[in-house]
């Protein structure tokens, strides 16, 4: 039984990581109105920037992570301005296909610069704590804390600050928002910075809890998509519930079936939910 609870706890940590990775994706979808398939590659950009600063240049992990996150935020911003802005008028389908292209360009660049192989950060080994027979490491706790902070922070930002309100107005009705004097350009810029920064944070967390290989970013996309679909595209709060559901479902399934089938479990959950709620957990009926 302890094993079962251990898996539930690991699932909650996986879920927290998925929340971090998906929240930026979902945010872009909500504000910019399209699915940015390249989003998971930003996790890779951040993870490998942090790794490069930390291992090759020998920086301490905290400044490396900060630089990694800021760098990723700006990479995201530049891509948003250079690639997506000029073709925005062509509609979400074209943007989606273009983002697939961006995904390959980013992934290929990371591959070319970093090279293949398995790496890990230069940080102390994880310390394990034991509560009622269930183990959790300090790094896992950090992931959970950051996921909570990012969610609460983004929610507060969107609901309490003028900039957040402007972003929400823009996501609801861009033309009306523009005619009411909201600076669409700067709002869009902030959106890209925030969503890419969140991807950067998720990338650092990935580097902390996992060993890094260059295909790691692509391996996340399925789970990110699963969480985003389950949550209902664009809904931020439902991402939390969906992330935890999928995280726990994937990890607890290891109790019964081989671990290679984890993505299969994630998508079985998604397909089951979609059969009853075609717009996801929080989706509204819209045509």
């Amino acid at each position, binding site marked *: 039984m302890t094993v079962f609870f251990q898996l539930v706890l690991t699932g909650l940590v996986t879920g927290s990581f998925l929340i971090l990775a998906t929240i930026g994706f979902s945010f872009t979808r909500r504000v910019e109105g399209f*699915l940015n398939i390249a989003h998971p590659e930003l996790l890779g950009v951040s993870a490998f920037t942090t790794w490069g600063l930390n291992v090759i240049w020998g920086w301490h992990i905290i400044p490396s992570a900060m630089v990694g996150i800021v760098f990723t935020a700006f990479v995201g911003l530049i891509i948003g301005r250079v690639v997506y802005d000029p073709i925005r008028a062509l*509609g979400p389908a074209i943007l989606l296909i273009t983002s697939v292209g961006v995904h390959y360009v980013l992934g290929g660049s990371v591959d070319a610069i970093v090279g293949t192989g398995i790496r890990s950060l230069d940080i102390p080994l994880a310390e394990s704590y034991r509560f009622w027979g269930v183990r959790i490491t300090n790094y896992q706790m950090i992931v959970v804390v950051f996921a909570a902070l990012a969610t609460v922070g983004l929610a507060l930002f969107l609901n309490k600050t003028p900039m957040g309100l402007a972003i929400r107005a823009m996501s609801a009705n861009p033309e009306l928002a523009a005619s009411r004097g909201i600076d669409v350009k700067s709002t869009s810029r902030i959106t890209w910075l925030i969503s890419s920064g969140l991807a950067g944070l998720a990338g650092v967390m990935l580097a902390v809890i996992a060993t890094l290989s260059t295909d790691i970013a692509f391996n996340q996309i399925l789970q990110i998509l699963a969480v985003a*679909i389950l949550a209902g595209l664009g809904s931020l709060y439902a991402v939390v519930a969906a992330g935890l559901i999928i995280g726990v479902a994937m990890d607890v399934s290891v109790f019964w079936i081989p671990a*290679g089938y984890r993505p299969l479990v994630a998508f079985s959950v*998604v*397909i089951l939910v979609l*059969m009853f709620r075609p717009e996801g957990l929080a989706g509204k009926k819209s045509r």
Partner: protein
Amino acid sequence: MTIYAIIIATLTFGAIFSVLTLSLNLQYARGGMINFGTVAYFAAGAYAYAIFTQEPPSGLDQYRFGFDMPWYVGFLAAGVASLLFALVTGWPTLRLRGEYLALTTFAFAEVFHSLLLNERRIGNGSVGLANVERPDPTTLGMSDTVGYALAAVVLMLVTAFVFNRLLKSPFGRTIDAVHDDEIAAQAVGKDDARIRLQVFIISAIPIGFAGALYAMITTLVAPAMFTAEVTFLFGSPSCLLVKRQSLVRF
């Protein structure tokens, strides 16, 4: 490699992948359904062909089934397998629209990929099935490469012809009606869900055949050949070359 060989190779693979694009064009431009899981239909066709024509497992082989049938049985089986896969994945997902459909079909493709990779009993896991049986074009007096290039081009032309005829028929007009105004189509008694599923299945069959042909040409099926890249490199052109773009609901 001479220029001649390059041209033949381009023609062969170009024709095979244009079958995929044709099918996706039918699904997306006319049916209004965006499918990001094309590679799974392709893989289903290729694996079905390989499994039906492969000899029964022996020695270190881990696959369970090899029926040792002639190539034409395998070829038909490929179309049927792709059709069945479309039925199984289409039935639960076609109530979804736009991005939800795109992502769920993508999910199905990745699940299928992971199944092929992990379940060694289907197709030997990551090793795949090698030495896939193939018809020999030299019996018709053609060299191997020319024979297969011709087969691929014929498949492409037949697909294009059949789809074209289909879209000009009353069925094609029904598709357009459902696509343009679902409520109106329902009001005149068209079952839109059924038509959508029909489009989905019809466009899957040629992808299965293309998969079988691909398996014959490469004489190998392995999960590494059927990654998401196939969908995005050959599927996305159809999304960009949409005939009736302004009408596409997304």
